[in-house]
C-alpha cells in the first residue's frame, strides 16, 4: 500500500504501554504500523478502547510522560517524532501536523473569544500579528463555512452551536496549512445532519489543500465516504487493513464483517433485525494467548484461542485472522 516511495507519515510497530503501580501494564496500542502518503486519507476504525485515540495522541506526542511508555518509530517527512524535544515538537504541532478533537463543546476555551484562539496559532507559527492575524482569522472562519467571520471572532464559544464550534476548531487546525491533519472522531458529538456537513467540509478542505488526513472513528459510514485506505483496529492491534472498496466490498476479518453487519441500511427490508457483534470489547483475550476477538467471533476455530494470528499481507490487504470470512460471505448476507 506504499503508493509513494517516501510516505509522509510512517508509523512502525508503535507500542503504547500504560503502567500503574500495583497493576499489570496495559498495552493500549500493540504494534501498530501504518503509513500515510502526502494528500492521502487514511481511516482508523474500531470500538471504544481499541486504541485509536491513543495512537493519534502518541503520534502527536501528546501523551503524558508519567506512566506511559511509547515504543516503536514514528517518522514524519523523514524526521522521527518520538525522539524530538518538546520545543521541536511544538514547532511541528500546528504547523506540520494538526489535530481536530472529538468534542467541540469542550475543546474551545470557554472564557476566550473564538478569534483569539484562532489568531494565537497564526501568531505562533506564521508570525502574524494584530490586524493581519485578525483578517486571516476571519478569512479562515469563512472558509470553513462560518458566515460573517469578522463578527464571530469576537464571540465566545458558548455563543456558537456545536457544528459552528467544530468548524472553528477545524479552522484552527488548518490555520497553518498543515501537511497532516488528524481528526479524532470529529463528528461523534454532533447530530447527524451536522455530521454530514462537517465531513463534507473536511473532504473539501483536504482535497483543496492537499493535506493528508487520518480519520479516526468508530463509524464505518464516515470512513466509507472519505478514506482511501482503512485500518480496522481491535484491542490495540490492526486486524484488517485494505483500500476502501475491497474492504467494504468483501471484508475478510470477522470483526470488520461484524461492524459492517451492525450498520443499519436503508435498502434492507424493514423487518430484518440488525446483527450486532455479540459481547463487548471487555470480552477480549490477551493477544499473546491467541486472537483477542476470539471470544466474540462467530468464525472461531480451536487455533484462535491457542495461536496468536499475525498480520499477513496479500496484495494491498493486511489480515490478522486464522479463519477469515470467505470473500463473498458478507456481501451475500447483506444483499438480501
Amino acid at each position, binding site marked *: 500500500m506504499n503508493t509513494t516511495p517516501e510516505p509522509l507519515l510512517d508509523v512502525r510497530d508503535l507500542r503504547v504501554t500504560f503502567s500503574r503501580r500495583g497493576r499489570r501494564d496495559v498495552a493500549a496500542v500493540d504494534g501498530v504500523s501504518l503509513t500515510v502518503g502526502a494528500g492521502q486519507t487514511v481511516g482508523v476504525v474500531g470500538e471504544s478502547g481499541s486504541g485509536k485515540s491513543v495512537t493519534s495522541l502518541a503520534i502527536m506526542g501528546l501523551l503524558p510522560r508519567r506512566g506511559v511508555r511509547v515504543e516503536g518509530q514514528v517518522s514524519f517527512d523523514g524526521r522521527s517524532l518520538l525522539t524530538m524535544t518538546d520545543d521541536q515538537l511544538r514547532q511541528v504541532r500546528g504547523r506540520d501536523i494538526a*489535530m481536530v478533537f472529538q468534542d467541540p463543546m469542550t475543546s474551545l476555551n*470557554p*472564557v476566550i473569544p473564538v478569534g483569539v484562539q484562532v489568531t494565537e496559532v497564526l501568531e505562533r*507559527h506564521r508570525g502574524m500579528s494584530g490586524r493581519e492575524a485578525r483578517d486571516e482569522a476571519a478569512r479562515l472562519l469563512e472558509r470553513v463555512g462560518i458566515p460573517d467571520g469578522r463578527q464571530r471572532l469576537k464571540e465566545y464559544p458558548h*455563543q456558537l452551536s456545536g457544528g459552528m464550534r467544530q468548524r472553528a476548531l477545524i479552522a484552527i487546525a488548518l490555520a497553518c496549512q498543515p501537511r497532516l491533519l488528524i481528526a479524532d472522531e470529529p463528528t461523534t458529538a454532533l447530530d447527524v445532519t451536522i455530521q454530514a456537513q462537517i465531513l463534507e467540509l473536511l473532504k473539501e478542505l483536504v482535497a483543496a489543500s492537499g493535506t493528508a488526513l487520518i480519520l479516526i472513528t468508530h463509524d464505518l459510514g464516515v470512513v466509507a465516504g472519505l478514506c482511501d485506505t482503512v485500518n480496522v483496529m481491535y484491542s490495540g492491534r490492526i486486524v484488517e487493513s485494505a483500500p476502501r472498496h475491497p474492504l467494504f466490498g468483501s471484508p475478510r476479518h470477522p470483526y470488520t464483517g461484524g461492524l459492517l453487519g451492525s450498520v443499519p441500511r436503508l435498502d434492507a427490508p424493514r423487518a430484518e433485525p440488525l446483527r450486532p457483534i455479540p459481547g463487548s470489547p471487555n470480552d477480549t483475550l490477551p493477544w499473546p494467548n491467541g486472537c483477542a476477538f476470539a471470544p466474540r467471533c462467530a468464525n472461531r476455530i480451536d487455533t484462535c484461542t491457542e495461536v496468536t494470528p499475525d498480520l499477513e499481507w496479500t496484495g494491498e490487504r493486511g489480515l490478522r485472522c486464522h479463519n477469515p470470512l470467505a470473500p463473498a460471505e458478507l456481501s451475500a448476507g447483506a444483499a438480501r
Partner: protein
Amino acid sequence: MSIQAAEILAETTHVDEEHGGSVRVEAWRRLRRNPAAIAGALLVLLFLLVAAFAPLLAPYGPTDQVALDQIRPGSIPGPSSEHVLGVDNLGRDELSRLLYGARQSLIIGVGSTLIGFFFGCLLGLAAGGLGGWVDGLAMRLVDIMLSIPGLLFAIAVAALVGKTRLGLMIAIAVPAIPIFARLLRGSMLAHREADYVMAAKSVGVRQSRIVFSHIVPNSLSPVLVQGTLLLATAIIDAAALSFLGLGTDDPGVPEWGRMLADSQSYLAAAAHLAFLPCIAIVISALGFTLLGESLREALDPRFRR
C-alpha cells in the same frame, strides 16, 4: 461594592452587550436578578460610602471629647438630639466614631485580603503552573502555614512588627495565603487536563501561554469569590484582634473591635455602646458575605438558569 464586583462592572462596559457575552457578562446578568446580591451590594455600597465620606458625614471628630462634662461615674448619657447614638465613656460622639471605624475596617479588610490574595495566587500559580518539585515545595510551605494557629501568629506579628495597622493586616493576610494558594492550584490542576488545553497543545501553543491565557482565566473564578468572602472574615478578624488588644497602639484611632472592648466596663450603664459596634461589624460582614455567595452562584455554571 467589592473590587471583584467592580471588575465585573468594568468588564461589562468593555464588552458590547449584544455581541459580547463572556462568562462574566452572563454572571453579571444573573447577579442583577438575585435579590440577595442586590441586598449585599447595597450594604457593601453603604459601607464603602461611609468609609469614604466619614469626615463629611460625622458630626464631630472621632477623638473630640465633646461631651466630657456630661459624664458622671456610673452614668453615660444615652442618645440625644445632639448625639444621635450617645457618647462613649470619654465623652466622644459614638456615631462619629462608628463612621470613622468603618474606614479602619475597610482599610484592614481590603488590605489584608489583597496581601493574602497576591501571595496566595503567586504561590498557587507557581504550584499549578510549573508542577513538579515547585508544586511540592509550595504545597509543603502551605502545610507549614496551615499548621500555625492564627491567634498565636497574630500575637507573634504584633510582637515583631509592633501593634500597627500593617501588623494587623499581615496577621490576617498570612493565614489566608494557603486558602488562595490551594484553591488556585486545585482549580488549575483541574483545568490543566481540560480538552481545550489539549487542543491548544495540539497546535503548538507555548506552555507559558497555555498557563496564562488558557488555564488561569478559567481557574480564577473560585479564587475571586473566595476573595469577596474573605473580605467579610477579614473585617470580623480585624475586630476580633483589636478587641483582644492586638490592634493599633494609638487609643485614639476608632476601631470597632476596640470600641466593643472598651464598652465592656460600662455594660450596666450604657449597653448600647456594646451593641452599636457589633451591629456595624455584622452589617458590613453580612454585605460582603451576601455578595460573595451570590457571586459564587452567578459564576458557577451549575446554577445557570
